């Protein structure tokens, strides 16, 4: 069993009187797709915000491949190889799709050259073209990203996450707002990526979760309610009560879990 | 020497109360509409000019106290509707718009009123001995009026429908709209109110200062100082900051240049912006 890619110790975040993340100690194994699920307000996105440096924890530690990254700033964490997508899809609306990918690629280097022409970076250019093909947006390369449909923006976000060659990818509800066809495409892409990248994914779509996750952690009110394989989670009483609740969901979950 | 210190300090205090009125107007506009209103000092200036015109038209000084805020309110509402609304209050664009507005107001006054600064005679002449200094009665009276107006405004915010609406929209626009509050109308009325407050301050201040088309230029930075140091959205804080700053400047002026006084206020403002942008007066929340 190799070193966990991500480990937190007693991670806590409070907003005023509200505890968003409560003493969370979680260990995410490498080379497995890990899904974080839970009802609204469970603290999932806050957890991601803590991991990616957008929030500082009130207490606790975050360790990435054994390295303490607690309290580091977002761009530093990004440079270490942790990339994330956002719950509300956000890219650079006035840059073209290709430029969005391009600047993501460029951002890996510490130094942005002030005088060399951007177009002369051929390595970046070929990477951009390859990624465009991968995510299927080659036809939209010159369009400003702000004019894209929601599903295409989500794919662009995934493309941006990919082109930066992350070692850990945090996907925050990547299929939210997608049509069934787009969802399938995204799921296939994520499975593809998981072969080389460690992935943690927040999802509401249980179909997707049970379809691709190797491990599932269920959060409720900022703490871990249950953790384990999809089959274990599906059978867990507390999870059913807290989260799933309805008989239709039970059957659905059983089917999906044993599919 | 002691007389001068006292005199300047009192002047500062009283001026601070008047500025508080104007700054309140700015705070309301800034807090609710998110607009950095470059023309706000000119709203004050227009108030002084309106007071002057109503005095020369009617021979009665007190008419100005009504004319200035009423016309000011109307002008403000029209401006919001015609200029601010079409640009949806977009950030950089509204600054340019208010900058243009400032030029228009200044030039219009210059055309109608003229370029020479004039003094207005106070309606109440004479002095009163106060703390060993002979103090102008009108200044004391102006302070009283300003206090009453401030109190009145806070009552308005608490108890009238429009006041409640304004507070609701500032607090949480979406919920307010969902509950049926007509946000657009509130914006129009808010801008009008902001203008009215500044114009009323102008009418009150007219005999104390000069009536001059450039009169707003000096007032503007001071209002922003009060709003920032008092805390954005913190109306009582703005009032407290205006009074305190003006009082402090008065004190400093007794030992140094007015310019030095102004610089120290500005440095204080920078410090607040950098270290404690929510303002110095916490605890007074909306």
């Amino acid at each position, binding site marked *: 069993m190799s070193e966990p890619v991500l480990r937190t110790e007693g991670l806590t975040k409070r907003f005023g009187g509200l505890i968003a993340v409560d003493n969370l100690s979680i260990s995410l194994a490498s080379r497995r797709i890990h899904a974080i699920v839970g009802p609204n307000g469970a603290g999932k996105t806050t957890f991601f915000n803590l991991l990616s440096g957008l929030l500082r924890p009130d207490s606790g530690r975050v360790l990435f491949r054994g390295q303490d990254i607690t309290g580091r700033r977002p761009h530093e964490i990004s440079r270490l190889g942790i990339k994330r997508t*956002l719950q509300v899809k956000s890219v*650079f609306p006035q840059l073209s799709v290709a430029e969005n990918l391009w600047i993501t690629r460029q951002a890996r280097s510490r130094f*942005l050259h*002030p005088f060399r022409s951007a177009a002369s970076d051929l390595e970046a250019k070929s990477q951009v073209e390859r990624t465009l093909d991968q995510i299927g947006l080659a036809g939209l390369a010159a369009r400003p990203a702000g004019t894209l449909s929601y599903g295409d923006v989500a794919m662009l976000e995934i493309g941006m996450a990919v082109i930066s060659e992350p070692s850990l990818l945090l996907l925050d509800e990547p299929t939210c707002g997608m049509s069934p066809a787009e969802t399938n495409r995204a799921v296939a892409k994520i499975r593809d990526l998981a072969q080389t990248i460690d992935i943690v994914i927040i999802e509401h779509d249980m179909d997707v979760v049970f379809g691709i996750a190797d491990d599932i952690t269920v959060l409720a009110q900022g703490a871990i309610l249950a953790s384990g394989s999809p089959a274990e989670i599906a059978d867990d009483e507390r999870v059913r009560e807290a989260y799933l609740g309805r008989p239709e969901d039970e059957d659905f979950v059983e089917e999906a879990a044993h599919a | 020497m002691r007389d001068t210190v006292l005199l300047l300090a009192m002047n500062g205090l009283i001026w601070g109360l008047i500025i508080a009125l104007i700054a309140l107007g700015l705070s309301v506009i800034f807090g609710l509409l998110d607009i950095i209103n470059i023309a706000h000092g000119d709203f004050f200036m227009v108030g002084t000019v309106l007071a002057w015109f109503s005095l020369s038209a009617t021979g009665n000084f007190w008419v100005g106290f009504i004319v200035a805020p009423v016309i000011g309110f109307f002008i403000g509402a029209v401006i919001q509707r015609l200029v601010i609304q*079409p640009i949806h209050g977009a950030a950089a664009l509204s600054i340019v718009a208010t900058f*243009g507005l400032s030029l228009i107001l200044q030039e219009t006054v210059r055309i109608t009123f003229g370029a020479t600064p004039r003094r207005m005679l106070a309606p109440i002449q004479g002095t009163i001995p106060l703390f060993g200094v002979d103090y102008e009665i009108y200044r004391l009276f102006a302070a009283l009026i300003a206090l009453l107006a401030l109190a009145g405004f806070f009552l308005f915010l608490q108890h009238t429908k429009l006041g409640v609406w304004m507070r609701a929209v500032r607090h949480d626009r979406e919920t307010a709209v969902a509950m049926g509050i007509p946000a657009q109308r509130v914006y129009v009325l808010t801008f009008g109110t902001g203008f009215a407050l500044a114009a009323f301050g102008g009418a009150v201040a007219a005999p104390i200062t000069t009536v001059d088309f450039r009169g707003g230029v000096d007032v503007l930075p001071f209002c922003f100082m009060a709003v920032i140091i008092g805390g954005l959205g913190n109306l009582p804080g703005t009032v407290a900051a205006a009074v305190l700053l003006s009082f402090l400047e008065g004190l400093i002026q007794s030992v140094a240049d007015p310019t030095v006084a102004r610089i120290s206020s500005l440095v204080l403002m920078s410090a607040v*912006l950098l270290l404690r942008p929510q303002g110095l007066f916490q605890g007074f929340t909306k």
Partner: protein
Amino acid sequence: MTRRSIEIGVAVAFSAFLIAVPWLVPALTDTFWVSVITEILIWSLFAASANLLLGYVGLLSFGQALYFGFGMYGVALGIDNLGLSFWPAFGLGIISAMAMALVSGVFAVRLSWHYFAIITVVFSLIFYFLAVSMKPLTGGDDGVNFSLPPVFHFGRTVWSLTDPTFQYFFVLAVVSVCYFLMYRVIKSPLGKGFVAIRDNDLRASLIGLNVYVLRLIAFVMAGFLAGVSGALFAFFGRYASASYMFYQVSGEAVVWTIVGGAGTMFGPLVGTTLFIVIREIVSSHWEHHSLIVGLLAILAVIFAPKGIVGLWNGWMTRLDERDAAASAQLKLQAEP
């Protein structure tokens, strides 16, 4: 007519015009207009400094007049008080402007954008009042005059800025160099980084861009442009005054930029040209030209928020699309 051919045509005509000004303009109107055009070039750099921040990085600075002032006083005091010759004085102006931009930027750039806009004004006001209070040194609002040392010696010939033609070309050369530098930066990875931050600073930090440092770099670059503009201005008028550090001057730069077209290369130039020409034409007949400036500013933000160059770009894009559609049509027809 394709977009490309139109733009090339305009560029050539414009460059030809600029080169011919000292002879063309006096032939058409008055020699006076040569110095107006010189002034326009100088002020367009100032507008460009506001444009770099607002249009490309998304930072609204209402205090560029501060760095203009440092450039201006760097030259004036360098020549008058320190006895510097031309180039060292020029250098002093530029360096002090950039240094001031660095120092104030370190603090200002940390703030979110409302507070950033406000603190830029505050900083410029502080130094405005300082300049006013140090009247013996700076001349306060009235300003100081100085005589200009010559620029070039060639054996026994001496070229100096008192010759309006030489002055025009010198300014044109400096301004062109600055625009060229801006062009390179905008097209570079750094420039793309700026735009990314403008569009979505949260996303920018998540992909690894250090938003604070990039903003600071842009701020110093803008300080450079404003400083050059101020230095040129001092040379142009042989004059420096604290009144040019007041916030209304900064505000004008922002207005010229937005009306001309923020986020475009030539927007500041177009805007500056428009407003200064209006000022010159109107003020000779009517003293209230500020009224027109104000009205134009308001009309521009309501009806043409992308500015004149923005409108132009819009038309050009439509032209492009029409051409693309037309050639697609032709392709279809050509196929058997």
